[in-house]
């Protein structure tokens, strides 16, 4: 019994253990050795990632509030891996940080919140997980204590998110009011198609949409990405988003199955809106982090496109895409973070002539961007195409056509960066930057992921298998 719980909650327990170790470490010594802390955390995160292979069983615990199965284990491992990469690529920033342990505690708490959210089968746990993944992150966003932008970003994040969670809560309360239950499994049957439930659905949808930056609930994204410290930005853009999407697909297909007709419309509309608005804004960005933020908004649009498809295919495509997206985006953010930390340069134009001085980083950034853009042979190509293929499976050709054509626009801005890196002349390019061992390893891992995930078909097939099963 106890071992069952241990195995079921292995990820959560692992993260909690790390948090407590760090807490005690902080209590024991006020000026801990940052490198050591990082080594420990990274090691344990690696362990947590590998936990996936440790008896990924199926269970339902704690008053049916906590469910686990292969899929959730998989998702948690993916998130652990993401956290590991974030932590590794931000090596330089973290090393200098005076409050490293606190920072880790916040990030890990946020991760823990995501785990709870992923495993939630109950609106209460979902809500707690959601808040738990956001509130510490808002604090972490402010960790560049001296930067004006950092606190502005944190402020925008916490206020926007509290506003959004108030609306989300209102939606939850209406659902509770109409159904009398918070359990996903019950809601599936209890939820009837009435105006009030549709409204509640929209409210909840908006809550999700806020977290994954769907237009028009996306407006905080770029500002927060720009202002936050790079690890937080990377975390937000990849992990928060992935975690919420994991739950989102689940909620949409499971809880709101009866409202399918309604939410499909919303999803289609917002998918188109996100793609277009994300693209249009990304076109004109100068700051590379803002640029990545808007491009991420467009990417989410494509995820929503996939959501229109048949449940299994859609979820498989989305999870597959997120896995690729994690590697691609972290590769891009990793390089941006390294450069930003070493030189303070964040403008796209600063990257002129980057290839002359930093070949490795240039290629990593380029491959990351290619993958985001969906260019073969990177995995992003497969990810994006499978998303759209899934979207087309229910015959939404108009949307598919529009989304495909928007790919061209997105291509423009990704290539713009590539062009700056490889083609533009510059007398004073960014000087040669030594990334360090951890970041290099992490970036190579990203590249490996980007290359292998697409070309190696069984990766996708495995996800399909898991999804089909649950």
């Amino acid at each position, binding site marked *: 019994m106890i071992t069952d719980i241990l195995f079921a909650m292995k990820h959560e327990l692992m993260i909690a253990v790390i948090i407590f170790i760090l807490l005690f470490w902080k209590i024991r010594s006020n000026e801990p050795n940052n490198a050591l802390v990082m080594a420990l955390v990274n090691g344990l995160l690696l362990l947590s990632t590998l936990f996936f292979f440790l008896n990924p069983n199926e269970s339902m615990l*704690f*008053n049916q509030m906590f469910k686990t199965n292969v899929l959730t284990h998989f998702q948690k491992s993916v998130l652990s891996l993401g956290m590991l990469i974030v932590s590794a690529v931000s090596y330089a920033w973290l090393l200098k940080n005076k409050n490293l342990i*606190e920072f880790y*505690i*916040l990030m890990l708490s946020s991760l823990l*919140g995501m785990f709870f959210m992923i495993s939630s089968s109950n609106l209460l746990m979902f809500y707690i997980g959601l808040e*738990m993944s956001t509130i*510490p992150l808002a604090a972490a966003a402010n960790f560049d204590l001296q930067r004006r932008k950092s606190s502005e970003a944190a402020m925008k994040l916490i206020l926007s998110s509290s506003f959004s969670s108030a609306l989300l809560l209102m939606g939850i309360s209406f659902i509770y009011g109409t159904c009398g239950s918070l359990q996903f499994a019950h809601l599936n049957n209890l939820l009837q198609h009435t105006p009030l439930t549709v409204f509640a659905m929209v409210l909840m949808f908006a809550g999700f949409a806020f977290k994954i930056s769907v237009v028009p609930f996306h407006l905080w994204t770029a500002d927060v990405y720009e202002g936050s410290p790079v690890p937080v930005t990377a975390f937000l853009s990849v992990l928060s988003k992935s975690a919420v999407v994991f739950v989102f697909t689940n909620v949409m297909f499971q809880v709101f199955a009866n409202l399918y007709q309604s939410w499909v419309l919303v999803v289609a509309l917002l998918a188109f809106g996100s793609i277009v608005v994300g693209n249009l804004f990304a076109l004109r960005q100068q700051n590379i982090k803002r640029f990545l933020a808007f491009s991420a908004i467009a990417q989410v649009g494509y995820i929503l496109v996939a959501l229109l498809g048949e449940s299994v295919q859609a979820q498989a495509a989305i999870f597959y895409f997120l896995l690729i997206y994690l590697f691609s985006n972290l590769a891009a953010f990793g390089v941006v973070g390294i450069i930003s930390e070493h030189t303070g340069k964040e403008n796209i134009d600063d990257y002129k002539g980057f290839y002359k001085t930093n070949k490795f980083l240039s290629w990593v950034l380029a491959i990351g961007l290619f993958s985001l853009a969906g260019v073969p042979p990177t995995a992003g190509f497969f990810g994006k195409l499978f998303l759209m293929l899934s979207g087309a499976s229910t015959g939404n050709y108009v949307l598919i056509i529009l989304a495909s054509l928007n790919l061209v626009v997105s291509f423009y801005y990704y290539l713009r960066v590539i062009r700056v890196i490889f083609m533009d002349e510059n007398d004073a390019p960014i000087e040669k930057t030594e990334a360090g061992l951890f970041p290099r390893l992490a970036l190579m891992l990203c590249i490996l992921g980007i290359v292998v995930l697409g070309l190696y078909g069984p990766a996708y097939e495995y996800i399909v298998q898991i999804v089909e099963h649950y």
Partner: protein
Amino acid sequence: MNAQEIIFYLIAAYILGTGIMAVSTHKIFRASIWLLFSLVGIAALYFWMDLEFIAAIQIVVYVGGIVVLIIFSIFLTQKAGDEMPAPLKSRTLPAAFASLFALAFTINLLLHHNFGSASEMVFDSSVERMGLAMLNTGDGGFVLPFEAVSMLLLAAMIGCIVIAMKVKKEEAQ
């Protein structure tokens, strides 16, 4: 209209009135006090609903905790009695329109929704029941959220400390 109802409407009017004052007064300190009144009014509503436990939490956490925190922060960032700048017209109009529209929209939905007949069952909201549920791992237990929230509070606390702590001089450079 019986006494219960009259009391309800009074409390409702009180909550809304103080709420409106809280979001419209120009003095920030007064606003916090109006908020305090409004929250107390909500506690009163809980009392009216025979939910003493919730009412108590409302008073302890909100009135005793959050509002005090807010007042502290006001002191840290403002001089008492400062007039706040008036809201921008460009913001007020759409905001008012959106809020009113949303209000009408929601109320319309609520009025037209059939919630079914009220249950005749007596609602047992004793502190004992809640206590047992809070720490129960089995059916009807809430121990997991309880633990999760405690982790959240821990994290929030640590975050607050780091952010709000005065930065030492040499770090500032």
